[in-house]
């Protein structure tokens, strides 16, 4: 066995396959929900033709299944694959299975109560809208299961460090550990929100809840969640993409610096989602805005480093001149289908990143907050680079773990292109509609887009229709992908191996500096904690001082409280 491969046990092989296949089924349900959303908004349908229920139920399972369930599973599966592979150490399979089962049970539980219409609270589950307690318990199991998966990696990492004094930790491991350090700190707040506030309140043990406090705790989690989505994609960009393109990673140090900067700046920024909220001082909102600019920096560095890596690859493949290398990259090579998922995601992220900086820009948020601009923006991040990288990664991993040749490679290659075209059309429609005042999370088909309604807004209609066209194309793109994914899953394996021998396209660095100051997480975690305390203490104090009374629980169907 050479150093480019690692043999996983049969038990871990089965677990990781399960962690990839089941969320793909849930993702399909979620994406179906997404397609229906565009139809509801345009007034084409008034109730869901297959699963029943209204726009808001569909919006809830679209958000929860795609943005929370699918992403968490993939991050865990990628870590379960990359960390043992890079460190050449075995996972503790008991812990890994316990974590996997908790996540599976939790996700299915949450999905079932949503589909039964008992948790139409959207994926932000703001109180005082109340969901069935099983919704909160399901989400908790999913999060705790993912914690457990990462606890499994810590002793492996520490052991490796002990055995390899003076060596650099593989960049992919640094990236995965960073992802889960941020995830752990951020989810502490939402765990507190759920376990101490929402769950006892939804079960009737506590009467009232402080809505602003719950909301603030949610956003403590809600923005770092974005980096929990993004960072596994960054790991694949830094580790895989240069190698697949036929080049090297331009700077190893830049990669390490970027991950450490994410640890420092990912969390003390959540209040930029609450610029328009009461009970939080504007000066603290500005402070969170400044830190948000800090967290934009590693993404700008990433844009440079990855472009430089691709330029190196393109020139090696014969590209000439300032831009000639761009034409030499393997955009349409069937055997390098994975490259398309990564490069398209990066291209989309140019627009996603600009949109993010606009949203974070303090007063400018007034023009866009909670308008359709916002889903237009975040589909260019979480449903752009993140989704495409995760889909490409899932297909690659399933081929590796099940030891199967990828089926329908042509479909797999074209899928991200179809999807990307659809995504740009849909997001353009949502963003411009939003600038015209169209609200997000709103079933416009039943009012603003209905010519018979007194609320009819004629100048929104074109943009609403654009999002239908885009949505249909996105859906077709995903179906093409699923043909390839499930075609691969259900094909016959040529292997008679007990376990699975895995390999990853890990890039070599072009510039490789010792960067001793970037080798230890500890100082960066300490700085992060200091920034969190500084930025959140005044926010929480403001909220506690300026709010009055508590809130009884409500159902989305009645203006009368539930008790």
């Amino acid at each position, binding site marked *: 066995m050479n150093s480019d491969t690692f043999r996983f046990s049969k038990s871990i092989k089965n677990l990781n396959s399960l962690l990839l296949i089941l969320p793909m089924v849930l993702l399909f349900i979620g994406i179906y929900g997404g397609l229906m959303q565009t139809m509801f908004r345009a007034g084409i349908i008034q109730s869901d033709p297959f699963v029943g229920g209204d726009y*808001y139920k569909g*919006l809830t399972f679209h958000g929860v299944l795609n943005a929370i369930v699918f992403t968490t599973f993939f991050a865990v599966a990628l870590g379960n694959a990359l960390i043992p592979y890079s460190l050449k150490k075995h996972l503790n399979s008991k812990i890994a299975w316990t974590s996997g089962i908790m996540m599976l049970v939790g996700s299915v539980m949450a999905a079932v109560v949503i589909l039964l219409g008992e948790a139409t609270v959207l994926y932000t589950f*703001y109180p*005082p*809208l109340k969901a069935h307690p099983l919704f909160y318990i399901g989400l908790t199991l999913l999060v705790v299961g993912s914690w457990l998966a990462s606890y499994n990696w810590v002793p492996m990492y520490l052991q490796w460090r002990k055995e390899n004094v003076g060596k650099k930790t593989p960049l992919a491991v640094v990236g995965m550990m960073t992802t889960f350090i941020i995830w752990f700190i951020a989810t502490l707040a939402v765990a507190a929100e759920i376990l101490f506030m929402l769950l006892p309140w939804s079960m009737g043990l506590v009467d009232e809840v402080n*809505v*602003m406090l719950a909301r603030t705790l949610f956003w403590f989690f809600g923005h770092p969640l974005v980096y929990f989505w993004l960072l596994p994609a960054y790991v694949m960009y830094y580790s895989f993409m240069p190698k697949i393109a036929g080049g090297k990673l331009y*700077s190893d*140090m*830049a990669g390490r610096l970027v991950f450490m900067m994410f640890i420092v700046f990912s969390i003390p920024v959540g209040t930029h989602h*609450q*610029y*328009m*909220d*009461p*009970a*939080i*001082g*504007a*000066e603290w909102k500005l402070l969170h805005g400044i830190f948000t*600019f800090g967290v934009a*920096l590693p993404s700008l*560095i990433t844009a*440079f*480093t990855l472009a*430089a890596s691709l330029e190196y690859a393109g020139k090696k493949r014969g590209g000439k001149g300032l831009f000639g290398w761009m034409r030499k990259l393997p955009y349409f090579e069937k055997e390098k289908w994975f490259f398309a998922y990564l490069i398209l995601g990066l291209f989309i992220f140019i627009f996603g990143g600009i949109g993010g*900086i606009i949203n974070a820009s*303090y*007063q*400018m*948020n*007034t023009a866009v*907050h*909670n*308008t359709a601009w916002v889903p237009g923006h975040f589909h260019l991040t979480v449903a752009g680079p993140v989704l495409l990288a995760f889909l490409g990664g899932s297909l690659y991993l399933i081929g590796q773990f099940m030891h199967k040749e990828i089926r329908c490679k042509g479909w797999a290659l074209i899928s991200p292109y179809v999807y990307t075209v659809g995504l740009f059309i849909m997001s353009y429609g949502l963003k411009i509609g939003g600038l015209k*005042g169209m*609200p997000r*999370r*709103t*079933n416009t088909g*039943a*009012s*603003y887009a209905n010519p018979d309604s007194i*609320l009819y*807004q004629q100048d929104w209609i074109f943009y609403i229709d654009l999002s239908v066209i885009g949505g249909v194309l996105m859906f077709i793109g995903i179906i093409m992908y699923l043909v390839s994914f499930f075609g691969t899953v259900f094909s016959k394996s040529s292997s008679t191996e007990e376990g699975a021998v895995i390999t990853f396209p890990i890039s070599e660095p072009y*510039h490789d500096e010792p960067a001793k100051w970037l080798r230890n997480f500890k100082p960066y975690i300490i700085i992060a904690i200091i920034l969190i305390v500084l930025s959140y203490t005044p926010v929480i104090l*403001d909220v506690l*001082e*300026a*709010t*009055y*009374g*508590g*809130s009884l629980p*409500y159902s*989305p*169907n*009645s*203006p009368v*409280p539930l008790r």
Partner: protein
Amino acid sequence: MDKSEKIAFTLSGMLLILFFGGIVYAAIVEDIDVPTCITNMEPFESDTLFQTGPDSYELQMVARMWSFQPSVVTLPVGSTVDLYVTSQDIIHGFKIERKNVNLMAVPGAINYMRVTFNEPGEYLFACHEFCGAAHHTMAGRIIIEPEMTEGP
């Protein structure tokens, strides 16, 4: 770290500082700000509109499932309004089209923004936070009437 990398890092930092300059400019020169924490306002449960000066008004608005109270506000052109918004039940959102007013209406808290209407016309405000089954019907209008000649 090689030269081009250093240039890229510096330019990235400068770009962000430039954007930050834009925020400072908007705050100081254009006087546009985001809502802040207010503690000097008594909680209110019903809506009120009253005049506080020749061209200034105070409007206390209540959002509830699924309407704003008041849902239609008529004011003369040139009015400056001190706008207070709260919710009686769950979270709602309030944005006046073509104006720098975008406020979350949260139960147990009061949100505030001052706004001046210099252009006559109709301004739609639509609830923009999911507030239950009829959320998409929750909207209202501010009607700014043109200068009227004083009648007898």
